[in-house]
Structures are given as C-alpha cells and as structure tokens.
C-alpha cells in the first residue's frame, strides 16, 4: 500500500521545466507591465499647460455667474445645496489649476489666493446654506466676488500673452530649454501613472507576489498577508494619483507637438506609443532596423520594393517622445495597416490573450473538477447525464463550436473577451472532467476512503478531504496543457475576426494584419509570443506529468 499521492506541491526542478516556468512568467510580466512598457502618455512630465490655463481662465466668469445663480431661488424653486456645491467645486478646480501654474510669490498668485478665499468664506457664511432668499448683505458680497472673477480672468489673459510668445520660442529651441515669463512656472505630473486603472495597479503590484509563489511554492500565511497589503496599496495609489487638474492624459503628445503644452522635461515609456495610436503615413512600415524601412523627408521609401510607388506618400510626423524618423528603434516590429506600432500592440495584446487563456483555464478546471467529482461518486442519473453531455460536446470540432458561440454571445450582451474565455472553457472542460471521474472511481474503494467512511464522516467531507486531493493531480497536468490550447484557440478565433473587436489588440488580432505576403514580417513578433506561451505551457505540463508519474511509481 503506497501513500496517497497528493497534488504536486512544488514545481519540477528539471532544466526544461525551469525554462518553461521562467518564459511563462516573463510573458505574463510583459502583459502585466504593458502600460509601463508601451504607452503614449509620458511617465513624468514637467511642463506648462498653456491650453489648460487658457481654457480655465476663459471659463472663470461664466462659472462664477453659475455659482452666483445657485444661491438665488429661481421662480420659487429653492436652490439645491448639491447644485451649489458642484458649481463651487468646478470653480475651485480652475483656481487650483491656475495656482499650480503660477509662481507662488507673484502678484497674480496672490490674486488667485484671495479669490479662492472669498469663495470659501462665502460658502461658509451664515445663511449661505439655506435655500430661502438671501439677505442683501450676502448678496452684495456675492456680486463683488463675481466681479473679482472677471478681473482675475482679465489679468490671467494679459499675463498669458508673454507665455504664448515663450511657446513659439520653445518650438524653435532645443528640448529642455523653456523660458517662461515672470508669473508662470512649470508644474510636475505623472500622466502615465494617473491614467492606470485600479485593475492595472492591482495586477502590477500583485505580480511579484504571484511570481514568488509560483517559483517557491505557496507559503500560505505570508502570501495572504502580502496579498492584503498589496490590494490596499493598489487602492491607495489609484485614489492618490488621480489625474491632477489640467493634465489631460489623452493626446498629450499631439498637444505638445502643437505647442499647447510647453515641456521642460518629459520621460516616456520605453515604447512611446499607445496601442491605438494611429499614424497613417507609416502604414505597414517594416521593422525600422531593416534597410527597406528607410523613409525620406517626404515619407517615400528610399529602397526596397515600395521605393517606386510614391503616390500616397506624405511626410511622417514624429511626435513628442518618439525616436527619430529613421532611428532603428522607431518601430522594432514594424507598423500595421493603420500605422500603429506592432510592438506596442503585441505587448498590450498579451493582456488580452493571456488573460482570456488563464480565465478559460480557471473556469474549465473549476467546471471539470466539480463535474468530474460528482460524476465519479454518483452512480445513477447524474453520471448518465454527465456522460451524455460529455459525449455530445466531444463530438463537435472544438474550434467550430468556439467560433460559432463566440459569434453568437456578444449579441446577447456578453463582453467579447469574457465570451471567448467562457466558450473555450465550456467546450473543453469535458477532458478534465473525464480524467477526474476516472481517478475518483479508482480511488473510491481504497482503504483510507473506506476508513474515513467507516469513522462516520459525512459524504461531502469524504469527497472533498479524502477523495478529491488524490484525484486532482491529473487535472493539474491537463490544466497546463489546456493553457496552451486556450492560447491557441483564442489566437485562432481573433485571427478569423471573431473574439476581440478592434481596436483592442490580441496576438491573433495582430496576426490578422499580415494579410499580404509582402508584409509577412508582421508574423514574426506575435507568432513568436504565441509559440513561446504554448510551448512553455506544454513543457510545464510534460514536466508535471513526469513528476507525478514518478511519485506514483515511488
């Protein structure tokens, strides 16, 4: 009588398995940190936002009038305190923005400060919180405050004339040399970090923990503590790094190019492109380290097959933070048919491809294990039903079923990525379930199960504490193989035009761009990543199986 074989607690230590594990971790890391690696928004920006200051000052008089109106009941409808608070908040936002862009010692800054204080005192004045008609004294103070805003707007307007001249000068001067006139100063911001969602923060912080758990084996208590700490940190960072007023993260590069944001210093991500940043003048440009990708100033190809065809060529606009026109690292993997950087799309595409694959595997393992356990212990109708469903599902070519179901589900309000993951799981859980069922049947009559049953434990406890742990090892192995299969299925679905919808990138969707033979270079990057993911998942599965067989033989 051998010891019951428990699920492998530690990863296999062979060379191939280590390689596979590290590759898989690297792929997941590139997907998790894609927003930091490829992003159109700068990581750090020290700049003067001319456009935002101008629009803030232009909005001040109107906003002040609105705020004034929120105090007076209109046609016997009492003024709502919430309307007043909103009007005040939008005024204060503009004032804060102006204050950030001004030298604190200047006269204009003092002016802004005075106005902000006037708003604050009026908001807390006795009688201001009520909704009946105001007393004349408060009314007069309100009028004065509104006039103050008009004066402030005019003063800002006058001071901005000098800043606009500085903008023109900065456009011709080198980067980093920005000569702003007296009251203005640059302000710092972190546009990339501010644009990240809670989910992105959470995964970025969680990943090191997950990698540590995967490499060292689960250490339950430490891991769960770290898990809690990291989710707290993610929440704090998301709340604390909301976009500061006036720094719009979208199209920041365009605003810099147009001279609306004057940059003193900007640090961009290594790949300074967003995944949906189009640039039609560079459509289907080959990888820029190839000689055939060289362009002249008019956007015409210098050599290669496309050199002659200059009909549609137009000059390429090199935006802020991007490598120069013919730099070898401008588009390391080329650009697709809309001129989007393939490397940026592949990095972001990994989030979709791997996310869908991991979600599908989790779902199919859960479904397969539960169904397999239940079918394994029950003898009657449930087992027959299970066999019927499994037999039916296994009769369909899985890719066929996935394609049709993925085409059908989004019309019923299911998110396309979730639909893909769900369908992959729903189509391929039967294999895991059959394995678990067979294993449960093999284990069910063993001595320790009989002993557990004889000692009066409940059937559920016998199933989950004594049978399940011994039946799950094959499920784990097939889960590793299912990961490879899910990556392949997702990429095939997206490649055929179902699955993710543009402009969302996934590895298969990027491969769809390489429709013509002369653009075959697009195949390389995404193809390599799909291959790496599938190969490492399969290698992991092989290693796990070998290890389990060894354990069973021992």
């Amino acid at each position, binding site marked *: 009588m051998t010891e019951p074989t428990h699920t492998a607690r530690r990863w296999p230590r062979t060379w191939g398995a280590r390689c596979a594990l590290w590759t898989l971790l690297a792929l997941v890391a590139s997907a998790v940190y894609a927003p930091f690696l490829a992003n159109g928004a700068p990581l750090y920006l020290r700049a003067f936002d001319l456009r935002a200051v101008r629009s803030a000052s232009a909005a001040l008089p109107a906003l002040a009038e609105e705020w004034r109106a929120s105090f007076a009941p209109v046609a016997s409808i009492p003024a709502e305190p919430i309307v007043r608070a909103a009007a005040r908040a939008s005024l204060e936002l503009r004032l804060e923005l102006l204050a950030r862009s001004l030298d604190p010692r200047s006269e204009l800054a003092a002016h802004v400060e005075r106005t902000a204080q006037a708003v604050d005192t009026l908001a807390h004045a006795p009688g201001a919180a009520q909704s009946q008609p105001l007393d004349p004294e408060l009314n007069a103070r309100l009028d004065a405050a509104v006039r103050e805003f008009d004066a402030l707007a005019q003063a800002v307007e006058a001071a901005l004339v000098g800043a606009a001249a500085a903008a023109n000068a900065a456009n011709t001067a080198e980067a980093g040399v920005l000569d702003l006139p007296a009251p203005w100063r640059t302000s710092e911001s972190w546009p990339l970090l501010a644009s990240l969602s809670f989910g992105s923060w959470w995964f970025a912080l969680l990943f090191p923990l997950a990698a540590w758990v995967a490499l060292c084996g689960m250490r339950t208590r430490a891991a769960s503590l770290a898990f809690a700490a990291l989710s707290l940190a993610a929440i704090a960072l998301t709340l604390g790094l909301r976009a500061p007023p006036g720094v719009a993260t979208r199209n920041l590069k365009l605003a810099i190019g147009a001279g609306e944001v004057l940059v003193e210093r900007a640090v961009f991500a290594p790949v300074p492109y967003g995944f949906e940043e189009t640039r039609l003048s560079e459509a289907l440009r080959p990888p820029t380290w190839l000689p055939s990708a060289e362009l002249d100033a008019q956007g015409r190809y210098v050599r290669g097959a496309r050199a002659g065809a200059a009909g549609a060529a137009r000059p390429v606009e090199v935006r802020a933070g991007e490598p120069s026109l013919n730099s070898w690292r401008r588009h390391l993997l080329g650009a697709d048919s809309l001129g989007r950087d393939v490397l940026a799309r592949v990095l972001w595409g990994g989030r979709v491809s791997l996310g869908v694959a991991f979600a599908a595997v989790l779902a199919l393992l859960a479904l397969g294990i539960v169904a397999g356990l239940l079918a394994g212990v029950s003898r009657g109708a449930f087992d027959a039903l299970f066999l019927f469903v499994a037999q039916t599902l296994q009769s369909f070519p899985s890719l*066929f079923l996935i394609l049709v179901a993925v085409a059908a589900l989004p019309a019923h309000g299911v998110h396309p990525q979730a639909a893909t993951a769900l369908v992959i799981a729903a189509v391929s859980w039967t294999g895991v379930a059959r394995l678990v069922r067979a294993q449960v049947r093999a284990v069910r009559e063993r001595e320790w199960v009989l002993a557990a049953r004889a000692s009066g434990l409940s059937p559920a406890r016998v199933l989950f504490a004594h049978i399940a742990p011994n039946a799950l090892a094959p499920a784990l192995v097939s889960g590793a193989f299912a990961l490879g299969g899910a990556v392949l299925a997702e990429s095939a679905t997206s490649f055929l035009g179902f699955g993710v919808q543009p402009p969302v990138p996934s590895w298969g969707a990027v491969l769809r761009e390489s429709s013509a033979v002369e653009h075959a270079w697009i*195949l390389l990057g995404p193809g390599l990543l799909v291959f790496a993911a*599938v190969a490492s998942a399969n290698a992991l599965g092989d290693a796990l199986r070998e290890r389990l067989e060894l354990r069973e033989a021992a």
Partner: protein
Amino acid sequence: MARAVLRRLALLLPTLLGITLLTFALLHLLPGDGAALRFGGEGADPGAVDAAAFERFRAEHLLDAPLWRQYLDYLGPFDLSPRGHTWFGGSGEQPWGGLLAGDLGHELLRPSVGIAGELAQRLAITVPMSLAAAALIFGIGWPLGVLLAVRRGSALARALDALLFTLYALPTFWLAMALQSLLGGGGLGWLPVVGLHGRDADPSQPLSYALDTLAHAVLPLAALVAPSLAYVARQARSSVLEVLDADFVLCARARGLSERRVLWRHVVPNALTPLVTLAGQTLPWLVGGWVVVETVFELPGMGKYAYDGLMRREYGVVAACVLLSALLTALGHLLSDLAQAWIDPRVRLD
C-alpha cells in the same frame, strides 16, 4: 460481437440527439434571424420591404412559432410549416422536411442554392484532403514515435524531439501563413499558395491536372498535418517507452528473442493499439483545422463554407456544417472504438 456493435450503435442515438439539440440552440443564439437577412439585412429601408412577403416568410419558416415546434420542424421528418404535414395543422402540400428527411434547406441570399448539394461539392474537396491528412499523420507519426522511443537519448532523437515539440506549439494559421510567405510567390516561389487548381489547369489532361492539384494541396496539408503529427508522434513515443519497461518485454528478452522481434512482435502492437482511439479524436482537429487552413489558402472546402456562412450570417449553412462535422466525429469515435475492440481482444465493448 454483433450484439456488442449493435449496443454501441444504440448508445450513439442520444449523442446524435444531443448534437442536433446543441446545433439548434447555437443557431438560435446567433444574432439576427432569417427574415431580417432575406429582406435586406439590418440596414434596409423598412418602407421598401414588402410587409406581406416578410410576414409570409416568417410564417413559412416558423420564425414566430414556439421553440419546441421549431426544433421538431428542424429535426424532421415532418414539415411543421403551414404547408406541411396534415398531422400538425399543415395543408399537406409538402409533408416531409427537416434533418431526418435529409433536408438541409436553402441558402437565404441565393435561394436557388440547396445547402445539401453545395455541401456535397465542398465535401468532395475536404474529405479526400482529410483522408490524406490522416494517412500522413498516422503513417508518419507512429513510425516516428517508435523510432524516437527506440533511439532515445541519441542526437537524432533529441533533434527530432525538439522539432516535434516546436511543431506541436505552433498555431495552424501561423504555420499556414508562414509557409505561404516562405514558399509562395512572395518568397521562394516553389509552390502555388491560393486555391486548389491553377488558372490554366485543364481537366481534360488528367495527368497534368492531377499534378497541379497535388502541388496546390502540399502546403495546406503540411500546415494542417504538422501539429497533429507532432502530437501523435509524441503520444506514440511515450506509449512505446511505457511498454518497453513492461515485464513481458523483459521476459521476451530473457527468452533470447532478437531485439527486432521483441520490438515488432511484443512492444509495438501493445503500444500502438491503445492509440487507435487517437485516430477517432483526430477527426475533430482536422475539421476544425480546415476552417483555418481553407480560409488562409482560399480552398473552396467545407471549412471555408462554414466560415463564409458565419461571416455572411447564413446560419443555415453554419448549422449544416457544424452538424455534419459533429456527425462525422461521432462516427469516427464509434469506428475507432470498434476497431480497437477488433484488434485488441482485451477491450470489451460495453
């Protein structure tokens, strides 16, 4: 044996029922219905549609009927539409229809095209190609697996192992496109990459016509076969390795049998008969693979027909292709079970 076969056939019935149920369910989940497609799609001007014809079409195709009625109509052999069998309140003009009557319906946008006839034409391409693919997969995969097991540890076996591992992890569509770019007109120009026949192929000259077809079939077959071949070879290898360690092999060696006789009389039969079931499983991969390969190489086969049907919202076509491939697969499973029972007397069919 005959009784066992009959029993196994009877077990096929619920599976067939499940297949039609799932196909029917998928058909109903797909967005848009036949009437909307037939009368100009979603973008059509509602005023221009002949309302009477629209309603007549809906009634004839039971689009407003309860689902069970639609399913019975779909399944056959009775036609439940207003012109259908008198048992179900029809006029009796057209009593039979549905799957059991062998009726797959007509395409909506080209009403003169019967789906069954079109599918038969498509299958004339897909079936021979699938058989060729299966022959290649097992004809190469099994001997390769045996070779890898016997020569384990040698440089050759390691290189082949790495190659198979690579092939197994490559997406079919990627391989198809890579072969197309590498060997087709844009690359080395060795082989044709689009369609099944050259533009000037002449059917009246059988030899050159056959050669032309063969040249066109090489790349699609290679793209389709490579991953499955790798899988089968790897399975065969591990199966042979397992049997090589068995006691009866030790015993055969101890009796002084030659290594060759041990291998071919004792190891290979025991290792490969369990893999007959793999042949049954290969069928769904092949059919699924054809969707991708036929789309990339623009072969007018069943996979391409299904893909086009899905793109054009011809759901009758999609349903017919899904159903047919599921039936073929179920049949493949049955045949491989029977074959295994026939080859290996230890397997019981119950």
